[in-house]
């Protein structure tokens, strides 16, 4: 700052504006003679310095911040919709067709038959894959149910149905539905002739 002041003062030519500034600075700091004097030269350098500092901070901010956003929000939104659709499908399947009768899902859990239950497969895939326009969606699923072994607090899961084998590479969502079953005289998870609550779990994903 002082160097600049001295150099500019030494010149004979200068813009009128700068001459005014110099006059003002002399006027304002009249009591300070010698090296410590303040003047208004060098403003452009100060502004340039601030600009450079801001540029560096801004660059560092953008670089550091860019790595933290690595997932687009869209992935979660489609997961959310898939989960809601599967949940709705299970709810429809657990609704009886005639009042006071068993729902299709109750009948499936009570009599699953061989492991890949065809009724569950056709109902679930129809409810989730059919579209209003031509063609169908590509949703796949694998379903099982969990019951508690009575008496005690142990649980057991049994496969129910699947449309694809799980390769663990799927980006799947999990939907569940509580179902009340009663198999009458036949044994079910350690009891007979009683209502039981079981949890039907479905993993679903798009191919």
């Amino acid at each position: 700052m002082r160097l600049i002041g001295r150099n500019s003062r030494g010149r004979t030519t200068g813009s009128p504006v700068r001459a005014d500034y110099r006059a003002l600075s002399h006027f304002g700091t009249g009591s300070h003679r010698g090296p410590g004097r303040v003047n208004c030269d060098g403003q452009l350098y100060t502004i340039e310095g601030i600009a450079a500092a801001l540029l560096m901070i801004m660059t560092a901010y953008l670089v550091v911040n860019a790595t933290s956003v690595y997932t687009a929000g869209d992935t979660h939104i489609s997961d959310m919709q898939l989960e809601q659709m599967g949940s709705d499908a299970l709810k429809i399947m657990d609704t009886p067709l005639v009042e006071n009768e068993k729902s299709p899902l109750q009948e499936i859990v009570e009599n699953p038959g061989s492991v890949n239950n065809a009724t569950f497969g056709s109902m679930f895939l129809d409810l989730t894959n059919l579209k209003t326009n031509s063609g169908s969606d590509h949703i796949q699923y694998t379903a099982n149910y969990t019951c508690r072994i009575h008496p005690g607090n142990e649980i057991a899961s049994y496969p129910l149905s699947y449309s694809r084998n799980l390769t663990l590479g799927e980006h799947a969502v999990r939907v569940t539905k509580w179902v009340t079953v009663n198999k009458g005289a036949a044994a079910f998870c350690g009891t007979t002739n009683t209502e039981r609550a079981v949890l039907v779990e479905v993993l679903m994903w798009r191919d």
Partner: protein
Amino acid sequence: MARLNDDAQWIILMGFLISFSFFFLAIVINQSTVVGQTTAESVIEFPKNDIRDISQTISGSVNLPFPSNETVNQDIVVIALNRKNAVVSYTIIQPAPPSDVHSHAVIHYNNGVTEYNENWTSL
């Protein structure tokens, strides 16, 4: 040293203003992706369907006779803890005819993020 010319400071200041406004707009755009992500995440995290489902199952079991209601209660508590990571506890209060003809179910649900309590009354 280059000759210092401090004309046109207004132009530089205006340039500053414009670049600052661009900078803040960039921050707003930058944050918008995070907002979309966290919104969808919080919708997934909120167990709306789980709560509706468990409330429906419990209210459907209020009229079960004695051994069955205890079995179903234990089923729901144990399976919810093991498979849904949720602590569920409920009590069914049978109707006391002269004063109260309704069944009640006091339901508590907590999965560590969301806590839900319901006092269900039959029609």
